[in-house]
């Protein structure tokens, strides 16, 4: 046992020297690119199926029927179990949140010996993004910022002093733009920021975000900020609309069973800011993959090979890693704008083709959620092995969260099994999820069209530009997973 531990410590020490190599956020990826056969199959299926669905929907009359939903009312023991489960999950989430901040500030600063980077990037961000489209809005229960603020509010009430908020009126024009801005900032931190795998900097970022969140909750009220500015509530909320489970109340009550993805067909259109957020979500996951392609590797190489008198080194006086980060910092918002522009262009074309006097934004607000299956599919294709392999780091780290040589649960010597997700499984899952996501997206978009356009002809014709856009996004995803991963030299 003792010897095992020494071996693990030696390995960890080796890893510590190599931590700079970690890609997106934190954690290694060893995925082989999908082979040509998979790529051709995926691309062919995407195009063929798009036409098949298009043809199938030409036969359908507009329908206003609601998609089937089964509501289960929970009483007695099931309700109590649900409530207790939620309370335990919330308690654990708050405990882990506080622990992550503590270990970030005071623990070992090597990213692989400290719990914080693994917990934030792999378990927290990627893990909850996987859970939400399956189990529904788990973040509403897990959100530690909400839980802690609610606790403070309860104490405040018990002391006989009303709501814990100065109840300023939230400006209507601001909508969900704060969440959009925070999300682009978050994506920058995940993909560009030099402190993303440095525990103390990560803890500082969490603290700063806590301060912003709680200040805004105090200013505008907890619920208002959760609906407009708390970026993870909105992002995981978008993913959770895909889930076959919907939890209407916060404390048990009822649960609705529905067809997967049917929650994305909304009666109420989204706000323009939520449209921007939804498209940004698609843009940033795709951009993450793009940064690991040989194409971006060439951009990196060109920057590093810039002549000594280049403005990068003279005028801007950058270090090499800073120059690489600068290029990413420009390209990330550009990618978001590009995706938004592409979507709006399609909506504009649709508005030209429709029989209704429907404006570009009017359409954009109604169709945007149909893109969500494409981002989810890419998320699965890109992150499955990352979650299952990288996530294993949490097993030893939970026993030794500070990296001080503890062994709380006897798992500190656990060695990560990097062969857990074999290439064949990963390739098949990647292509299957991308094609499935595409099919679902195309179906949803047709369903929405049939709902909002009176004439079937109009519903069908307007789908042509949307189909082109979706095939484009899907090909983009397929192309990225067919490219060999190139590690960033920037760390």
């Amino acid at each position, binding site marked *: 046992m003792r010897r095992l531990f020494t071996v693990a410590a030696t390995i960890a020490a080796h890893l510590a020297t190599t931590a700079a190599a970690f890609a997106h956020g934190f954690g290694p990826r060893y995925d082989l690119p999908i082979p040509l056969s998979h790529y051709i199959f995926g691309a062919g299926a995407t195009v063929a199926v798009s036409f098949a669905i298009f043809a199938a929907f030409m036969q*359908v009359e507009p329908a206003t029927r609601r998609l089937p939903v089964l509501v289960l009312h929970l009483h007695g023991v099931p309700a109590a179990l649900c409530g207790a489960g939620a309370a335990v999950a919330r308690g654990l989430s708050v405990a882990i949140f506080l622990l992550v901040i503590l270990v970030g500030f005071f623990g070992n600063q090597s990213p692989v010996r400290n719990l914080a980077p693994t917990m934030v990037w792999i378990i927290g961000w990627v893990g909850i993004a996987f859970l939400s489209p399956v189990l529904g809005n788990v973040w509403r229960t897990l959100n530690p910022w909400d839980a802690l603020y609610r606790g403070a509010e309860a104490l405040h009430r018990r002391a006989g002093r009303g709501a814990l908020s100065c109840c300023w009126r939230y400006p209507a024009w601001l909508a969900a733009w704060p969440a959009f801005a925070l999300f682009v900032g978050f994506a920058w931190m995940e993909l560009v920021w030099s402190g993303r795998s440095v525990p103390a900097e990560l803890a500082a970022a969490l603290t700063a975000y806590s301060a912003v969140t709680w200040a805004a909750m105090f200013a505008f009220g907890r619920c208002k900020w959760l609906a407009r500015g708390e970026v993870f509530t909105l992002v995981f909320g978008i993913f959770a609309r895909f889930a076959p489970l919907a939890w209407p109340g916060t404390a048990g009550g009822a649960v609705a069973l529905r067809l997967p993805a049917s929650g994305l067909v909304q009666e109420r259109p989204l706000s323009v800011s939520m449209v921007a957020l939804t498209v940004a979500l698609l843009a940033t996951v795709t951009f993450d993959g793009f940064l690991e392609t040989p194409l971006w590797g060439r951009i990196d190489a060109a920057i590093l090979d810039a002549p000594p008198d280049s403005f990068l080194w003279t005028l801007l006086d950058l270090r090499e890693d800073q120059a690489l980060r600068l290029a990413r910092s420009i390209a990330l918002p550009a990618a978001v704008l590009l995706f938004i522009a592409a979507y709006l262009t399609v909506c504009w074309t649709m508005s030209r083709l429709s029989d209704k006097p429907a404006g570009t934004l009017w359409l954009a607000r109604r169709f945007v959620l149909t893109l969500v299956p494409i981002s989810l599919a890419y998320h699965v294709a890109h992150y499955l092995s990352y979650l299952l392999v990288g996530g294993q780091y949490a097993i030893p780290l939970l026993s030794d969260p500070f990296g001080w040589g503890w062994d709380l649960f006897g798992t500190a010597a656990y060695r990560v099994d*990097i*062969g857990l997700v074999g290439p064949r499984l990963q390739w098949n899952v990647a292509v299957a999820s991308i094609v499935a996501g595409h099919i*679902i997206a195309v179906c949803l978009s047709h369903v929405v069209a049939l709902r909002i356009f009176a004439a079937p002809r109009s519903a069908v014709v307007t789908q042509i530009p949307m189909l082109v856009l979706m095939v484009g996004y899907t090909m983009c995803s397929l192309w990225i997973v067919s490219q060999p991963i190139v590690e960033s030299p920037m760390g």
Partner: protein
Amino acid sequence: MAPKVVDMSRLFLALLVAVASATAVAPARAQPMPPAQAAAEPMRFAIAIKNRKADVAQQQIRVRQGDTVELSFTSDEPAELHLHGYDKLLMVAPDAPAVLRFPASIAGHFSVEAHAFGINRGRASGQIHVVLLYFDVYPR
């Protein structure tokens, strides 16, 4: 002929089922095959590091899972090399070539990096590290 009226939700469900079945039976045939290995003979690769780069022909090494692999490194300056994933460390110097021999038991895409030297052209190099080559192990 009037368009046929189809129950929307049933159509939706049918399509979902079609998706699931189509994607389940789908992929996995012709994989790109790295050269087959002669029984028990290790796959040998000689990698010469010059100017902090591996020769272009050696920047992508492909083997099959289960092969025994022998990587021999020579370098024009001292460096510490790290094969990620397999987590093998070794030192190489101009007068001391390094040989790494191991069974390629895990499939995947792994980088070999040089840690001890970093690109440095007079500017402080920050956290730049150098990937010398990728070592790809394809499943059988």
